[in-house]
């Protein structure tokens, strides 16, 4: 509905097979527990990492319905590089 109103969207998915059925235009898949689409409480870099991937998907997906696998390994991942200065250049995104 939002896309039909002329606004692009990008989302997070925890359950890939639901997303394959519902078919939102751009999604980032995280193999993470329910209730944690942006990670763990107060893990600021982890939350920023997810937002970074979602915004990148917003600009990079050209095939409607694409699901990008973030590959993030929950607690096994190191998120140190996702400081504000670390993501600023990566998120200088153009249509």
């Amino acid at each position, binding site marked *: *509905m*939002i*896309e*039909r*109103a*002329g*606004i*692009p*969207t*990008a*989302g*997070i*998915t*925890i*359950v890939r*097979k*639901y997303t394959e*059925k*519902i*078919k*939102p*235009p751009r999604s980032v898949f995280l193999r993470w*527990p*329910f*209730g*944690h*689409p*942006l*990670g*763990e*409480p*107060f893990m*600021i870099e982890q*939350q*920023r990492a*997810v*937002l970074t991937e*979602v*915004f990148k998907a*917003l*600009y990079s997906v050209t095939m*409607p*319905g694409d699901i990008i696998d973030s590959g993030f390994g929950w607690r096994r991942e190191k998120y140190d590089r996702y400081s*504000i200065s670390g*993501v*600023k250049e990566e*998120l*200088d*995104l*153009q*249509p």
Partner: protein
Amino acid sequence: MIEPARLKNRFIARILGKFPFLEKIFTSLYYPEESEGVPWTPVKKPLKESKIAIVTTAGVHHRDQTPFDMTDPDGDPSYRILDVRKPIGDFVITHDYYDHTDADRDLNIVFPVDRLREFEEASIIGRLADTHYGFMGHVAGRHIDTLVRKKAPEVAGMLKSDGVDAVLLTPA
């Protein structure tokens, strides 16, 4: 006093949250309605010039708003208007179908308003909208039609009127 059906749903959500392998079994039992086609609007502006809003299905609302209906087995297709000029402590979650203990501690894991505010301050995004929208993700049966034909188009229209350039969708 909370109804037994709500206690059962909360108990199931808590157990699923603790044992990820059970989540897989649970999700394999439920099949969402298949959508026809994929809606698509191309991005038009650079991110640093874009006004961003969040639409969440994690059951977020303001304390003084009517909570989502947790007694109807078909869920609740309504939405709440979320004003992020209010402090983050003014938001609560009503959603019995997932364990939101962690999101109650830090709302940003389902509604990342503090992170997007940082992005705005760093000029990574153009602007964080003042108004965002909260749904409760459990919508089934007769409520699907209400969501698709009435509630979702209402929200889309308000986002458009507000001049939002892109929307971030966050689930539970």
